[in-house]
Each structure stands twice: as C-alpha cells, then as structure tokens.
C-alpha cells in the first residue's frame, strides 16, 4: 500500500488542530489550555507547509547552474514557507504574552484552574 505522504501530513495537521481545540475547550488547567493553543498553531503551520509540497520538487533557491524554466517547473511552492515563518513568530509572541498573564494571575490567585480564575465575577 503506497502511503501518500501529503495526505498523511494533512491528516496529522487536522488532528493537531482538533486536539488543540479540544484541549483549549475542555481542560481546566491554564497551562494545558495554552499547550492546546500551541498545538492549534502548530497544526495550522503544518497545514500550510503541506500545501507547499510538490512531489519531486527541489528547494526554491535559484542556483547559477539552473535555467529559469527548469527552476519554475520543478521548485516547491515558496510562498507558504514565508507565511509559516511569520506565523511562528506571531505564535511565539502571543505565547509569551499569555504566559506572562498566567504568571501574574497565578501569583494573585494561587491556582492555575481556569474555572476558578476566569469565572463570572457577577457584575
């Protein structure tokens, strides 16, 4: 049975996304929610990378010994990789802000339970 690696990669990305949303929704510990969100971001990144896959494609660096038409026909699609690099940076900065907030709230409330810290304050 020949396994299509791109299809498997899409499935992995999809399952990462679903696991991430599940963790962000149903787990009570804030750190576990954040790990779930990281899964979600990574799943989307993997999805993007998989989209740029070209069977038998070469790395999209135009070396001096290539012709333009050969390069255009065989290189993998470079745009998704640029998007992923930007998205990884966005994800990292957001993660830093979330973790900073959780740190302060943990010091204040002494707990990491989302239902205890983030409940309705009854205004």
């Amino acid at each position: 049975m020949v396994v299509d690696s791109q299809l498997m990669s899409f499935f992995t990305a999809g399952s990462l996304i679903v696991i991430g949303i599940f963790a962000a929704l149903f787990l009570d510990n804030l750190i576990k929610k954040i790990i779930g969100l990281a899964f979600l971001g990574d799943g989307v990144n993997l999805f993007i990378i998989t989209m740029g896959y070209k069977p038998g494609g070469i790395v999209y660096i135009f070396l001096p010994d290539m012709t333009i038409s050969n390069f255009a026909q065989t290189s993998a699609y470079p745009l998704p990789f640029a998007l992923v690099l930007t998205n990884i940076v966005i994800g990292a900065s957001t993660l830093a802000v979330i973790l900073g907030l959780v740190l302060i709230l943990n010091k204040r409330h002494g707990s990491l339970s989302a239902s205890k810290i983030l409940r309705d304050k009854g205004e």
Partner: protein
Amino acid sequence: MDLNALIAVMIILPIASALFLNLLHKKDRTIKIIAIITAVVLPIIPLLTPYGSHFFGGYLPLAQNSTLAQGLPAIITGTQLSQFHLGIMYVFSSAQQLMIFILGIITFFAIFTFINETKKPSGVYAFLLFMGTASLSAILLSDDIFNLFVFFEIAALAQVGIVVASGIKDNYETALKYILIGNIAGPLLLLGIVMLLGVTGNVNVTDMIFSIKNGFVDPQSPVLLMALSLITFGWLYASGLPPFHTIKSEVYSKALPHGAALIQAFSVFTLVAIGIIIIRLFSYNPFTHIAIIGISVIAMILGITMALMQTDYKRILGYLAVGELGYIGIGLGLGTALGITAGLFQAINESVITSFLFIGFGTVLYKTRTSDTKKLGGMMYVNPKVALLVLLAGLAMAGVPPLNAFQSKLMLIQASIQSGLPEIGIIMILLSIVTFMTFMKAFYTVYMRPKPKELEVLDNKIPKSTIISLVAFLIICITLGLFPQIATSSLQTLAAGLV
C-alpha cells in the same frame, strides 16, 4: 518625490513613533512631545497622499515590470501569471482616505486625553496605542490577505496590552480571556486564508477575485466554502459580533476611557475591512449576504437588549457599541451600492460617536473613581458642560437629527426597503428607540438623579483637553449630520466597485 510612498508612511510613522516612545519610557516631557507630534501628523498624512497603489519593494506585476520580466519563459510572461501581483500591495482611494483620517482623529484625541489626564504618561502605553493605530491603517489599506492577518494579530496584542495597562479591577483576567479566545479564532482565520491560498495560488485579493471570476477556480469547491466559513468566523472575532460580543464588551469596560475609545474604533474598522474583503471575494455566493445580515440582526438584538440589563455604565456603553456594529453589518450585507455606502458611513459615524461617549463618560470615572450606576448620581451639578456634551453624544448615537447617525441610519433604512427587506428597517428603528432609552437610563442614573450621600466626588478639575476633545467630536458629528455628502461621496466609489 514619489508621493505614493506616503501610503507606506501612514503605517511606518506610527510604528516608528511607537518603538521610539517605548524606548523613551520614563522621560515624561519627551514622550509628551513626540506623542503629540505623531498624533497631529497622523490624520494629516491621508489628506496629502494621492490615490493609487503602493507596491512594497517596488515589485509591480511582471506585465508592468520589464526589468524583472526579462529572460523569463513565455509560460510566465505570456499568460495570466504576468498580471498577478508579486509582492504586498496597498491600495489607497477615497474611502480608505476618509477612514484612516477618522482613525487618525480618534487616535489624536485619545493620545491628547491620555497625556493630559495622567501625570506621568507611560511610553509603553503610548507604544500600544500607536501600534494599534498602525495595524488598523494597514488592515484598511492592505490588498494582501496575509498581511492583513499579521496586522490583525498585532492589533489584538495591542488591545490586550491596553486592557492590561488600565489598572482597573479584574483587567488581567479579562485580558487573559480575550487572548485565549483570540488564539483560537486567529489560527482558524489563518487556516481559512491558507485554504484560499491553496485553491487560488495567491494571497492578493485582486488576483484571487480574478481567478474565481475567470474560471481558474471552481467557485463551488468545498475548500473554498470552508475557507469562507473560517474567514467569516475570524471576522466575527475581530469585530466583536456574536458570539464574541460578551468578551468585547468586557474588554471595553476594563480599559481606560481613551483606550476603550480607540479599541472600539479598531473593532469597527476591522469589521469594515474584513467585511469588504469577504464581500469582494464571495459575493457570488448568495448565502454570504444572508449570513452577514443574519449575524448583524442577532448582534443588534443581543447587544442592545443586554445593554439595558447592565448596571455598570462602561458595560452599557460596551454592549451598545456591539449593538451598533450590527447596523454596519446590515449595510454591508444588503449588497446594494446604497446599502454598502450607508454601512460604511454608519461605521465612520459610530466610531466617532462611541469614542465621544467613552471619553465623555470617562470624566465620571475621573471624578468619582467608580463606574457602578447604583452608586452614582447627581454628576450634572459637578460639571454641567460635560453633562450637556454627553447628552448630545447620546442623542447622536440614537440617531436624532441633525447629528450624524441620523443620516447614516436613514440611508440604511432606505437601503433595506429598496432591497425588499423592510423588516430590517423596522428592527433598526425599534432598536434605535431602545438605544435612546438605554442611554437615557444611563444618563439619568449617572447625571440627573440626586447624588447618593456615600458618593465621594474628587476635587480634581476635568482637564481642558478632555473638554476640547468632546467639543471636537461634537463638531464632527454636527458637520457630518448637516453635510453627509462629505463622507458619502468618498465612500460611493468603493461601494459601486463592490456591487
């Protein structure tokens, strides 16, 4: 000099100023001077910039870029590929000019109020305000959907920072909730964008529309429909439409008044920008319009009925702001030129009026340090001028002539009747009346009823800058109310292009 470079300056100037102010944190005088200079220049740049496009890096499409097109094979230069945009493109026309100008005005008054109300203005807070403005200008200008996503994430982080910096009780919890929810909606929006990329091979909206209209892409393909639903979901988060209305109104209530004024401007303009992109890309699908109208009606009903039930006046304003977003959505969803013009005009009016209300009611917080209507009362005798200005702001929000929201709501009702949906017009009129009632309830409990004995009114004078900001907003409201053509003439070209 290539004046089209001013399009990029609209983004680069506030970012550079923000970074500079962040470095200068704790040097109060320098922060005040640089912040005011940037805030003054920001609304002026869009007035000076000529209409056109700006291609970042100078990468025009190959068909117009003969140096780059040299030596490329005919499979690229002879086909549609030569018309596609190579890099990030910003489009600046009359509608963007008006919206960025209004955003600049709101930013100016927010910075002006912030600098004069706090003794030691924080460079970091000014950084957040300017980064948010820069992101919103980029979101309004960008024709590249991934660039829009990047700036949308920056704007979300800036909003979280503005909430964290307010010092109001429970603001950290609100900020954490907002960013947790944003980290679910953001990646899903990106997933939608990436599905569009996968199907059309482009991130430039103009090129994507070309591909969809000219048969390169099957318009009914399931991936495209999934992309539409995910982008719509991300749009709901970015603008604060239901189911995100509770967290958005909580964010408005936990920010300082000038911060809340700016955050609501961000939500309104993000709704407009992403809504326009959804209409441009997906208007061939009739369900898009039905969905936008449906969500907007729910937003109006939920927002305004919930506003009636609140006791904290900042929550009342927050829910009213969310309810007014529904009017804008209906204008966009109707899909006719009059409807879209009316929706965009309502967006401009609503951002001005809600900023007016937030800064106006913010004076109450300044004097009494509380926002609970159960404990307030009798503020009219403390400062009657501000009470009058706030009353006029409330009349403006309800749509009383000759103020601006009357013109835009009238246009919206006319558009809905012309489209064959008079029920929407009836709901809009009903909810405007209830908005007025909600505002009068808040106004009465804060200003008109007798002052409770336990209420402590501080002796500090309301800064002149706040009153100047309120008067300026009132002048804008009256001007747009008496001469709506100033705004609608700029918006009509964009609306006609979308139909």
